């Protein structure tokens, strides 16, 4: 069995009396690309935010290399520096240039030297095709460009897992492609990724594990060919049928 990086066990999350996630269980191994699909409000994003501890789970465990990170006394910032996150709304730092965005975390969190941070940042910006824009501020970029910078910023931290929270949902249709192709490159480079997405083609072609969520529970999970190609549950079939028609 491959190296297990993340193990999510019996994870639940409630906001007040509203139960958003119920008893979620799944495992992510090194090199896995897991696509989390499901209707809006099914808890996909909350699940991802729990994995990054941006939301505190109500109960259950998240094991990172076998160690529970949900308990008290866990150094959350330290853990987060190993788990990159790319947001739907980019969340680039508006007060910094593209280059600075990719350097600040390395310098402040990983305590790298300025020159080293610069080299690493440039390497990843090159990889996502944003190297010429290092002097631009986020407000001067298009959505697709911002998202590619956000991916470079996450990569520059050298994460073991990269979480994507609907990375293409806020983009104009013609910009979706450029972001997805960057993600595809990452996946073929062996990056471990957890992707919440509405792009069924991406889930089918790039991922090796698909998790279908509905109303806060995992309804079906498995290889993309099984879940997407031959769904067992009626709910999954209905959900996928909506995509096929559109």
């Amino acid at each position: 069995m491959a190296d297990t990086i993340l193990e999510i066990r019996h994870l639940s999350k409630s906001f007040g009396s509203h139960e958003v996630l119920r008893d979620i269980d799944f495992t992510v191994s090194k090199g896995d690309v897991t696509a989390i699909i499901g209707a809006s409000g099914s808890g996909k994003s909350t699940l991802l935010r729990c994995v990054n501890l941006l939301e505190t789970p109500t109960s259950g465990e998240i094991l990172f290399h076998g160690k529970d990170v949900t308990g008290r006394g866990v150094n959350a910032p330290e853990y987060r520096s190993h788990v990159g996150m790319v947001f739907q709304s980019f969340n680039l730092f508006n007060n910094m240039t593209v280059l600075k965005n990719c350097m600040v975390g390395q310098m402040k969190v990983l305590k790298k030297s300025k020159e080293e941070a610069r080299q690493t940042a440039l390497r990843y910006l090159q990889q996502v095709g944003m190297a010429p824009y290092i002097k631009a501020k986020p407000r001067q970029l298009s959505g697709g460009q911002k998202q590619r910078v956000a991916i470079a910023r996450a990569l520059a931290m050298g994460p073991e897992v990269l979480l994507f929270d609907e990375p293409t949902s806020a983009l104009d249709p013609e910009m979706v492609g450029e972001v997805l192709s960057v993600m595809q490159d990452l996946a073929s480079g062996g990056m471990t990724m957890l992707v919440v997405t509405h792009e069924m083609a991406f889930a089918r072609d790039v991922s090796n594990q698909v998790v279908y969520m509905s109303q806060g529970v995992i309804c079906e999970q498995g290889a993309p060919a099984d879940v997407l190609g031959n769904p067992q549950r009626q709910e999954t079939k209905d959900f996928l049928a909506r995509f096929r028609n559109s």
Partner: protein
Amino acid sequence: MEKLTKLFADIQVLLGTYGGAYLNGVRNTLILALVATAIGCVIGFLCGILQTIPHSKTDNMVKRVLLGLLRGVIRAYVEIFRGTPMVLQAVFIYYGLPYFTDNAVRFESVWAAAILVVSINTGAYMAESVRGGIISVDPGQTEGAKAIGMTHVQTMVNVIIPQALRNIMPQIGNNLIINIKDTSVMFIISFTEFFAAHRAAAGATYKYFPSATVEMFGYLCMTLVASFILRWIEKKLDGADNYELVNDDQLVMAAGTYNYPDKGTPFDERHKPSRDTVIQEVKLGRNRGER
């Protein structure tokens, strides 16, 4: 017309005799306003940052009690110093301290008292502005910083405060200009600023109106220069409207994937910062100066 000629003649007489006093007043006013606004900003930032420390019900008891106490103290400070006239605050502090300590604690220099009073007054207003400035920064910025592993302090220092500072620049400007004018009430503790020069000159010559004209003109000049400089600083903070492409990859250029940022208006997508500032100004209004 002859009235105007008379006015100019009177002003000339005044400036001949009291020109030095007026200039000295301008100097003192500017120094007091600048120093007190700067110290006030520091106080305001401290209060604003302390007030926005995140807290949750799961924190331990000690932290919650301490934070609650801190909020209470800051709240009281803001309400008291925002809610009473600065003239009275000056009297209270300048005469009150020696009164209660039998002259053990007193101000050797009227400068110290004046700077103290104006600073804590400005600080009380700035505390609220800074709090507003911090709250108005998109929560996504905090999440982005947390997601790359920054601690609360690192997030504040590197991401939130710089943006909050930009947001509240108009408020800092407001405070500086208000301080230039309102330091005139410091005559109550016999601080010789610009308005004190008017009292001296007009008292001795009975040329009230000509002296007031000099004062009006002087104050307007000071505030205009201040607001010009502040606008310039804001522009500097925003940085350039354009950016250079770092052209080290010919393929990228050939592919035509670069674009030129347009000039834009404050209300389109590209110009979010200036739009935010406009919204911010509308929201905060001018909440000082009407005291």
